[in-house]
Every structure is written in C-alpha cells, then in structure tokens.
C-alpha cells in the first residue's frame, strides 16, 4: 500500500517518490491517464482540467474543476479526483460527454477532455438555476435544433454560466457547438453517481512530509506548525493555490528546497463578518470567497469575473495574489480601493498592516521572511459607486495592462469620498492619491470629470511592453474616469453613452 496516494476515478494513484516539482497533470499522465492534456503548462488553456471533490457549505462536497498542470501532485494526496476517463467511456458516455460529442463540440479533440471536466463541474453545481422542469439530460434533448444559429447570454436557459468555460481554449471549433452542448444540459439523473457523491464530505487533505532527491514537500496541520517551518527554513516557500508558483515551476524550472502547503490550513480559511469588517482567510479560493460574499462587496463582484478564469479562481487565493505582489495583479487595486487591511502572522505573533502601506517596491513588501498573510479584511460599509476597469486584449482570462478600481461616494451630486486603486502603471499597485483628492468635493458632472481625468492621466509611471505601449497605458488612465462617468452619469444625462 502506497504511503501517499490520490484517488483518481475511484482508484488510488500512488504518489510515493513523486518530486514536489511534478504537477498533478504529469503524475496522472505518467500513470497512463492521458486524457488530461498539456496545452500550455501555465494555466491558460484548460486542456488539463480535472474535477476535484471539495467541501461544500452544507457539509457535503462539490465537484470543482481545476488546472492540473499547476499544483504539485503531492498537494492532492488524500484527495479525490475525477478525469474525463472517469466520467464516462466510449460505450457509456456521461451526459456532458454525449452532448459535446453529438453536437460537434470536438474537432481535433485535444481540448475536449478539459472542456468535459469544466462543463461537468458546472453541470453538478448545486445552485445552478433554471433546472426546474428540465428533463434529465439525455442525448437528443434537442429543444434548440437551429444548430447554426446561436444567441449568447452569460447564463444559458438551463442556468449554465458560461464563465465556467472561461479558462478553456479551443483552437478548432470557434466554441459555438461547445456552448450549444452546455446549454442543452439538463439536471443530473436520480441515479447519477457523481451527483450522489456530493452528499458525503470531501476528504480531508493528508498531512505529509516528503523528501525526494533533496527537495522537500510539507503539508503541516496547523498554522503554528507552518510558521515554525518557515522560521526554521529560510528557503521554505509557502504554496497556496499554486497558480503563480506552478507557472514558474513549469516554465522557469523554479525548484525551491522546501514547499510548505498552506492551502488547507484551517486558520487561513476563515470567512467572517463582524459589524465592522468582512474578513477573508488568505487561503480561501477566490471562487469560495465569491460565493460566500454573495454580493456583500460589490467591487469584488465586479473584479471576480475579470480575474483569470473560473478554473484559476477555483485554486487562486488572495494570499497568493498579494504574496506574489505583482504590479499587474488585480487583487491589489480592488482591495486598495476598499481600504483593505492585512493580518500578517509569524512565530513572533500577528500584526495588522494597511494594504496601502504593504507594497514597498517591485515585488517587494513589508512582509518579513517567515511571515504569512493570514487574513484580508475590508470595512463592512460599502461605497456607493464601484467599478473595476481592466484593460486587456481579451475579455476572459487575460492579464491587465492597466487596472483601475473605483470606490466612490456621491452625495447630492458631489463626490464625498473617493478611493482609486491602480495596477499596471508603476512598479507596485498604488492608490491614485492625487486623483482621489481632486475628485473629493467635486461635482459629479462631465466638466468636473474631464478636469479630474487629466489628473488621473498623470498618475503612476507606466512603461511599455508586449501587452501595451506606454502611451496607451497613459491614455487608458486618462479615459477611465470618463468611461466611469458615462456608465454612471446622473439620470438626466443617461443618453450620454
């Protein structure tokens, strides 16, 4: 019996001797489970998507789709995974597979197992709306047989949220038949084993301490244990969702001496709302945060769908986003606009740091070696007007060339308070302090907005790169506030769009 294993399609897959740098995808493929493919090894294409059983709010479990190419295989020890091979077989297709196959959803087929898993996760999403009265899905559920005509909505008639597929790329089909398949799905049949599986709890992660060829992987059980490890091993690197670390592991051969898994530490997975603050644990995934917040922080609701893809958000954490401290990260601008505070924890104890004081230079922060971000909190009171402007080439799953987050209060036609977070325009995320000052006290009118827009255009020190030129970044700062105004103009000028 293997010491460490992950359950894949109901069978144990041994992880003994697997190095910390080996991704879940490579571990699966090495064992002959070649359904999941590598299309990019950086979380962008979704060809590697697999399902994992994760805890659901009701104590049961839910099927969540993740990119297998990014996390260390070891971090899945003890967990339960299903791949396209496990959902069905050529003679016995799963409803998702049947819809995709019969509607022409696969051409070369390389992206297909990944789409199957992403789609299956959405198929099994318990709160998927629009399921009442739909027949159990079988093939030939042809209520919309105009196969060459398609009107798109974010939510299909069956409650299918197309964002579920925002992390899957297909180079062949142009997506129409894939969306048709998604929209043709009914609800799982009464005897569906994967649906039934949701009633039981998801397996707890297995604590581990593995050393392979001199590289160590540790999954501690408590925060205290994790902090001790980090204090004792200056080379140790914490890993949460691995959506940043996985990329450098795969592409830049980043091989830290010790990886410390913090993604399941209970102390970092808290979600709490007090009278004053809303607190999100650093290791809560963005998807979990989104569903728990349930609209309580409208600016984050504006952010989530623009942050990477659903697949990535199912693993990525705010702790990782601020831990990486990328100047083009999207979490920071939004959280800066929300006046967020971080709790940093180390063996020395905890301390609070305002996010606006956190960044000190390019990928540098006040966080000390051995210190972890434990929680991120924002005030309960929410600004009246929020927006997240992300300038990128692609609407789904792209990196910002410029990000502008707004949290603005207007009373009686006058701006009473303004917080503006910026990304992509300097070595660190920053607040647009001059703009905030210029806006506060100004009338919310086109003339005033035009004036302040010039101030915003002067913020930061944007550079040019392959994503955008310096001039364009500058120009986007300049038009952002005007765009906000056009979207939120007082009712009398509503036709301004």
């Amino acid at each position, binding site marked *: 019996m293997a010491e460490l294993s992950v359950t894949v399609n109901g069978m144990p897959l041994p992880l003994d001797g697997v190095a910390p740098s080996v991704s879940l995808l490579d571990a699966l*493929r090495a064992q002959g489970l*070649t*359904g*999941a*493919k*590598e*299309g990019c090894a*950086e979380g*962008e*294409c979704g060809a590697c998507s697999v399902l994992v059983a994760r805890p659901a709010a009701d104590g049961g479990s839910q099927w969540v789709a993740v990119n297998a190419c990014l996390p260390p295989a070891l971090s899945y020890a003890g967990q339960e995974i299903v791949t396209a*091979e496990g959902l*069905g*077989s*050529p003679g016995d*297709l799963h409803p*998702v*597979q*049947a819809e*995709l196959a*019969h509607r*022409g*959803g*696969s*051409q*070369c*087929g*390389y*992206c297909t197992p990944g789409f199957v898993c992403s789609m299956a996760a959405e198929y099994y999403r318990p709160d998927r709306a629009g399921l009442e009265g739909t027949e159990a899905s079988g093939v030939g559920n042809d209520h919309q047989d105009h*196969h*060459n*005509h*398609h009107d*798109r909505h974010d939510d299909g008639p069956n409650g299918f949220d197309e964002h579920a597929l*925002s992390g*899957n790329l297909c*180079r*062949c*089909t*142009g*997506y*129409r038949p894939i*969306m048709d398949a998604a929209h043709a799905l009914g609800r799982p049949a009464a005897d569906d084993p994967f649906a039934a599986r949701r009633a039981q709890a998801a397996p707890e992660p297995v604590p581990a301490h593995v050393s392979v060829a001199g590289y160590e992987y540790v999954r501690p059980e408590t925060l205290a244990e994790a902090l001790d490890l980090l204090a004792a091993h200056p080379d140790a690197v914490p890993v949460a969702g691995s959506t940043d670390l996985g990329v450098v592991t795969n*592409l830049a*051969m980043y091989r830290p001496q010790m990886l410390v898994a913090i993604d399941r530490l209970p102390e970092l997975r808290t979600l709490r709302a007090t009278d004053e603050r809303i607190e999100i644990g650093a290791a809560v995934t963005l998807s979990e945060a989104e569903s728990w917040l349930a609209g309580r922080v409208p600016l984050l609701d504006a952010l989530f769908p623009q942050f990477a893809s659903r697949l990535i958000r199912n693993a990525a954490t705010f702790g990782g986003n601020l831990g990486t401290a990328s100047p083009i990260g999207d979490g920071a601008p939004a959280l800066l606009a929300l006046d967020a505070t971080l709790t940093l924890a180390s063996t020395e104890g905890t301390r609070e740091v305002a996010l606006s004081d956190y960044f000190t230079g390019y990928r540098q922060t006040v966080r000390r070696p051995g210190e972890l971000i434990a929680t991120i909190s924002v005030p309960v009171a929410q600004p009246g007007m929020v927006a997240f402007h992300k*300038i*990128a*080439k*692609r*609407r*789904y799953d*792209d*990196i910002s060339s410029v990000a502008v987050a707004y949290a603005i209060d207007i009373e009686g036609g006058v701006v009473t308070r303004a917080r503006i977070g910026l990304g992509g325009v300097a070595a660190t995320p920053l607040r647009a302090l001059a703009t905030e000052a210029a806006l506060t006290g100004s009338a919310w009118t086109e003339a005033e907005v035009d004036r302040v827009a010039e101030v915003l255009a002067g913020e930061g020190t944007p550079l040019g790169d*392959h994503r*955008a*030129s310096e001039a*364009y970044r500058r120009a986007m700062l300049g038009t952002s506030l005007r*765009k906000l105004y*056009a979207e939120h103009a007082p009712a009398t000028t509503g036709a*301004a*769009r």
Partner: protein
Amino acid sequence: MTALAQRPANPVVGESVVHESADLHVTGAALYTDDLTGRLTGLLHAWPVGSPHAHARVTSLRTEPALAVPGVVRVLTGADVPGVNDAGVKHDEPLFPTEVMFRGHAVCWVLADSLEAARLGAAAVEVDYEMLPALMTVEEAIAAERFQGARPVMTRGDAAAAMAGAAYVFSGETTMKGQEHFYLETHCSIALVDESGQVFVHASTQHPTETQDIVAHVLGRPAHEVTVQCLRMGGGFGGKEMQPHGFAAIAAIGATVTGRPVRLRLNRALDMTMSGKRHGYHASWQVGFAADGRFVALDATLTADGGWSLDLSEPVLARALCHIDNAYWIPDIVVHGRIAQTNKTSQTAFRGFGGPQGMIVIEDIIGRCAPLLGIDAAQVRERNFYSPGQQTPYGQEVRHADRMPRVWDQLMTSATVDRRTAEIAEFNASHRHTKKALAVTPVKFGISFNFTSYNQAGALVLVYKDGSVLINHGGTEMGQGLHTKMAQVAATALGVPLDVVRVAPTRTDKVPNTSATAASSGADLNGGAVKAACEQIRERLAEFAAKRFGEPVDAVRFEGGTVRAEGSAAPPMTWAELVDAAYYSRVQLSAMGFYRTEGLHWDPVTVHGVPFKYFVYAAAAAEVEVDGFTGASVTRRVDIVFDVGDSLSPMIDLGQIEGAFVQGAGWMTMEELVWDERPGQGQGRLLTSAASTYKLPSLSEMPAVLNVSLLEAATEDGVVYGSKAVGEPPLMLAIAVREAIRDAAAAFGESGASVDLGLPATPEATYWAIEAVRGGVRDGGVTTLRRPT
C-alpha cells in the same frame, strides 16, 4: 454530371454525422503522439540547447558538463548525423547549425532518462557565440535588400498605362503581422528502432511522407527503412506541414544512436519560440479607380517576412499573388513578390497559405480608398466582382463566377444588411462613446496545390471476410474531419452503413508518396482515391453477385448494407454474406485507389497557368461595437453564406466554417506576435511566446449571434460526390470583422474619413485609429495622386 460527382441513391455522404473519434475525444480515450510515452520502456526525453542570440556564429560547443548531470545519456550534435545535416527540402535548414539564425535555434539536443534531467543537461551545455548583426523586421530587410528565394512577378496588361487613364490614383502601404498556429497539441515525435531494425516514427505531422523523406536523408537510409505514423493531431493548421520534420529527425537520430525510444515534445514555450508561423507581410501599392469605383489598375509589391529559411515561403507567396484579386476584376495589374530573410522563426504554412495576406491587401485598399472615392465600401466590392468569362491575373478563367453575386445577394437578404445599416446609423447618431458598424466582405479562394504534382493521392481499402472495411489513405486527421468524410465516401461507394467502415491512422507503409494534408484539398484528393479503390472492390463483387443472382452486372445494387439485383426474384444478400461468399470464391477484397486532379498546370516563374480546379465562394457580414474609451471591440453578430458544393458532411463543414472564422477573427483582432527588435541582449526574443501573452480567442470572443448557411444547388462537377473544399477559405471571412472595426472607428469622427487600422486591430490599435479620426486625420494614410477636378 461526371461519374466522380454523381451520388448514388441514399448516399452516406451528405448526412450530418459526428466526428468519427468524437466518443474517444470526449472520454479522453483518443490517443495523440505524446500519449504513447508511458507505453514505451527505456524511453529517453530530448531537450534543445537554444541560441540566446538572434544571429551568431557558434565558436565552441562543450557538451561534457551536460553528461555530468545525473540521468543525461547523450548529447546529440552535428557529429551524430549519418546522412545529410538538413531538416528541410530546400537545403537551407541545417539540423545542427554552426551559424544560429534566430533566438531559440537549437544548437544541440540533450537526451536523458527524464525530462527534468534533459532540461538540466541542456542548461549545463556550454556554447560560445560570436554575435552577428541581425535583421528583425521586414522593413530592415528591405532596406538591407536581404531577400531569399524566387522573386515572381504577376502581370496582365499594362498597369502603368492604365493608371495614367484612371480617374483616381491612390498609393499607400499595408502591413500585417503573422499569426501563431497555437494548435493545442504542440510538436511531438517519438522514434524507435523496431523489431525488424527499421526506424519507426510516431509524429504529429500533416505530411508523413515528407517527414519520412527527411528522416531518411538525415539518417542516410532508404525510405523503405523508415516508417512514419500519425495517429491524429491535436490541430495542425499548416503548422505541421513542414515544421515537424526536423524534430522527427532528431528523435530518429537519438533512437538509432542509443537504441532506445526517444521522445521529443516541445512544450508551449519551445514550440512558440522554435516553430514557424504565418508570414507577416508588407505591401506597397498604387491603385487606379474609375469614377464609379471600378478598379482600373493595380501595381503592388508584396514582401513576405520569411524568417530565417525558405521553408514554404515561395508557394505561400505564389498563393498571395494569386489571391490579391480576391473576387475582383482588376484589368491591368502588376504584382511583384519577394521574400525577406529575417532573424526569426522560419515562417511557414498556415490555413489560407498566403491567400489571406493577398486578400487583406486588396480589402485594405478598398477599406481605405472607398471613403476617398465617396462610395460605400460594400458597393465598391460588389461593383468589382468578376463576370462570367473573365480571367484572373494569372490567366485562369474564373469558374462559376456567377456564384459570387449569388452568395452576396443571399447574404444581403438573410443578414438584412440594409435595414441594419440604417439602424446602426441611428445608434451611432445617439451614442457618443460607442459606435457600431456592419461590414460585408467576399472570399473567392482557389482550390488545389499551386504545385501541380502535389495534386495526387492514394488509398488502400481492405475488406475483411466478415464484411468490415478498413480504409487507409494518405491524408492525416487533425480535427478537420477528413477521416469522417473518407468513411462516408467509402460507405457511399460500397453501399454499406457507416459503422462497417473504420479509418486507420495514417502510415507511410500503407500508402506511399502522399502529399501534405493541406491546401484544403484533403477530402478532394483522398476522397477521389478512396472512392476509386472502393469502386474496384464493388465492381468485382458486383460481377460475383450478378452470377449468383443470375442477372446482368449493371442490375446489381449495393445500398445500406444489402446487395440485390434489380428485377430479380432472388432474395437480397447482406453485405457480409456476399463478402464471405466472395472470399471463398477467391474474389480479391482489397484495392489501391489513386486520384489525380486533371486539367492543372502552373508556371511559377511567369506566375501563369491553371493552378486551381475550382474556386470556393463565400461572404460574411460582421457587426461590431467599439468602445471609444478603450478601443475594445465586440463582435455582435456574424452572418455567413458559404459555397461548399454539395456538402459531404454538413456538421463537419459547419464546424470548419465557424472554427476558421473565429481563428481568422483572432488574427484580425487580438493575436499579436511581438518580437524584441532592438539591438542588444534581448534582441530576437519573441515576447509573446506563451498562452499568457499571446492571446487567442476564448469563449468571450464568440460572436453573440452566428448564422451560417450553405449555398443551395452548388454541385461541383469536378469533385468527389459534387462537394467542395472547406478548410481554409472561411478564415478569410474574418476580414469582415476588421473592416467593421475600421468603419466603427471612422464613426467617431466627421463622416467620410478614411481610417488606417493596424492588423491585428487590438484594442490599442483601434484606439489609436479612433484618436487619429478624432484628431481630424481623414486620409487613412493614403496618398491621393490623382482625383477628378
């Protein structure tokens, strides 16, 4: 109708069937080359040592440090090549170079027990370089006059003289960037020496025969000692027509020198840095129009950015020349073609193969000149359509010229273009910050390889005693549904149900001397060959059955798996019964089929002849909405009318049309190859060499409404079962998206402005186009040399 085009009663072709591997795709059971890795014992992994310079001479190479890395077994260098050190057919692509020609060019390859060890080994190899000056852009190469290969000139009439009599004469330049194929499956080859001592290569290749040829010449062995198999590809799009050969050859050398199977798989970063892409093009032009918008003359020079070696740049250029007319009659014309040599990847085939680059030039000319003529661009297009009887500039009569206006009119009606154009004008009048536009563009695309010899194909059809049928043909399956169509062709020709037929993976030891699966011609060519093979078998069986039924041969009918004789009282037989009986009567149950396209000839030097069997016609109407704050555009609705002849497989064809359109729209709007062009340490680096930086369309780019209809009554008499090719032409329909963005950008300024728009029309490029219009620029970068006074 010809026998080739004639369909029997109740044919299986024409039925909408799903991809033959669909059930395997969705369950992850479909195997691709790399999926075989775990099935081979003792496998070695290969990893390249790539040049860190765009152009340099290798002055020394020390491989010993790599051998010190645990797990490294061997470092392959030029000294290991037993045959010819060349990966191409033009002999300008040394497999192990002493002069590196682009950043990432592999100097040597490390073989190791694990991929990790191979990567570490590659990092340990020490190479010294002497830096040489590099040319990164086509403009630099033009200035330095660094060209490679042929410089064809296509001429008809006297463009200069005609220009002198034109009412309007304009000149300008058009540039377009290249495009990365981004097949989801990257390049992969696995080579081994099999039990008979021959070299067996599993490769993700569109051209197994050429992979075989090059592996053989690199190994210095005859072709019969090398077998190449392509199980299927996770996309090809032209990127695996020429590019796989060198990688397969490296794996093959590795397998022969070590005796162990060698896997060479490029990860995405390597694939993007090392493999060729669609050619970027630069065009300078002078064009003459009559007052009514008709073309009078065109004088253009097209310069392809060929990258470091010739590869397929010459035929790509030929096709660009042959498509600069798109669907238009240009009476007097001269077009010069040349290929710049730059220090980048060797640019290669990509869906459309030069056709798009040629068409973009003329569509860009129309898009920018129409406002200067004061005529709506759609009208300029329509007025210039070929009339029946007219010839292309290369001297081929435009077959079925009447189909273009038929397609166009059908689209104008089905897409309600006039009504929506009026609605859009109203919308634009009431919206300051958002503008919409609707543009309609046509496509006329020539089908066949320009190079006449490639227009041949073979097939081997095997009928087993139990009646099951196995098809081998020279074409490869990369998602385009070729195998599905071939199974339908065989089922139709043999009169059996589709599930009786299986198509085998493509192997060079089954069907020899095949052409690349390319030029949209896979179904035309291989379909002809499969049909020919099946008909031989059917004729033998018909003869045999006639005797059993006691009726004449021409009374025997094969349909739906039963065989009967017209007018006979004898009960019908099942197909399997007949086959079984025929076996015992010693009837040959297998056949080789061969097909060649008749009537083609082509002179690449004079750019003249009849290179194409026929033309595919199509048109698209694209409606976009552009945000004036950011330049971001959204494609709201697309309508397409497409002539696929009598479709062999409607669902497959629809998939090709939609998929190609979206791929084309990606190139038009977001896919951007950015190289570091500045002299210095970073020079030559592809800055968008990953999925995170090179963005292809995702679900969010899918048009909100997409209507595709196939032209009715469109039998193509010269092709298998009356069908037409479909793979490439729909990509060029995406030009409509760029033209619509251009028009939407124009709507931000005073009416009538000409707009110069980048390609790709990224949000940034579109934003600058809008800013130019807002700033009062009205000439779209076009110089007006003459206009009526």
